[in-house]
């Protein structure tokens, strides 16, 4: 992965093979849980590379007792196809930092909500061209109209929903009537 100083010119297979090797000079015993959270900030969501798995709120817990590293991860949607890849990317980043057998656990409770996306994460989503979730997930109405969504490109609130679903399950498709650009909206759940 580039953020660990690897060259971009290597093939995916080389990187995968290398990722299974723990660097000889690594000293994970010197790292604290805070250091591990900082390492996780470098692991990006494969579908939305603008934000890290920490900013998305899908890393729920990190436990490191000097011998065993255990990380809890929660999926955004039940069928999110990126879940396994994210778990693998996290394990890979941990091995690169010297952790021999990182345990990645999938937890369903409490269920992920868009409220867990950090403010910084929401800003990064907007800068990336994805309108961040508006309001609290608890307000999601069953049959009512959705909230006003501001265009991430021009900021106009004159937007319309094109489809309840966008390029991934976690997004809806919108169109700005001001700048006429289509955009993804990260749905509130």
């Amino acid at each position: 992965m580039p953020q660990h100083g690897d060259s971009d010119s290597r093939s995916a297979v080389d990187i995968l093979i290398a990722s299974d090797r723990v660097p000889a000079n690594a000293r994970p015993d010197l790292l604290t849980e805070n250091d591990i959270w900082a390492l996780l900030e470098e692991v990006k969501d494969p579908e939305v590379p603008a934000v890290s798995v920490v900013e998305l709120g899908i890393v729920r817990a990190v436990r490191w007792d000097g011998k065993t590293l255990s990380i809890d991860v929660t999926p955004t949607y039940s069928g999110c196809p990126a879940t396994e890849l994210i778990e693998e990317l996290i394990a890979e980043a941990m091995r690169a930092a010297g952790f021999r057998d990182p345990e990645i656990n999938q937890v369903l409770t409490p269920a992920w909500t868009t409220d867990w996306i950090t403010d910084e994460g929401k800003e990064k989503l907007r800068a990336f061209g994805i309108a961040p979730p508006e309001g609290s997930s608890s307000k999601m109405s069953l049959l009512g109209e959705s909230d006003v969504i501001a265009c991430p490109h021009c900021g106009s609130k004159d937007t319309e929903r094109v489809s309840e679903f966008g390029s991934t399950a976690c997004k809806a498709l919108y169109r700005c009537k001001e700048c006429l650009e289509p955009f993804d909206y990260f749905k509130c759940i």
Partner: protein
Amino acid sequence: MTQAEALKEYLLRLADSDMILGQRLSELCGKAPALEEELALMNVALDLIGQARNWYEYAAELIDDGRDADKLAFRRDAHDFRNLLLTEQPNEDYAVTMGRQFFFDAWHYFTLKSLTGSSDERIASIAAKAVKEATYHLRRSSEWVKRLGDGTEESHRRMQDAVDILWRFTGELITPDDTDRVMAEAGIGPNPDQLAEDWRGMVNEVLTQATLTPGAEDAWMYMGGKHGEHTEHLGFILAEMQFLQRAYPDATTW
């Protein structure tokens, strides 16, 4: 029937209904009437298949005979499937596709909502995740039923036809059997009377707004999916869905 037996049966019903409807919707990949609709249908299918996996994994642990979620989905035959008959009905036109989805989503939403309070913690946690997705599904399918029902003369006619065609499979959603009763008594599954009331309330409200007429409450209903007695459609679905795992058992490279 013991509670342990009923629980395994109940989990397979939840899993199989999600799986079969997910597979049915996936048939529309590349064939949906509009790009936005295709995105939506495939995302709904993905949600359902993801939920199916969560139910299958729990079922596999309880069945405990060496089979995992994949084997339960891809190596059982039609008579072992416990999905609702509604979920295996063909896509036909878009009115039938969305009508089927609406009747299912209304059942799914109230079932999952109730399961979030299940005395079985694993079920409650899977349902808490799934109900958020089902809420979106129901909102979307009910909008389509209203749009088509209260649309043009042609769309109204087709949507009413869809309701009439599908109605005979809806009784199964809200008619409890022994398994449902054992689950309800154990505080694991929903109260059947409440589920039926909620489902009817939602269906009547949406169909009324859509200027559509529901079928009769005492209409003759096809039932049996929950016991492995299926319509002729399921075998064809499985033939396609299970082909790869039947031809190349345990294939893990994709």
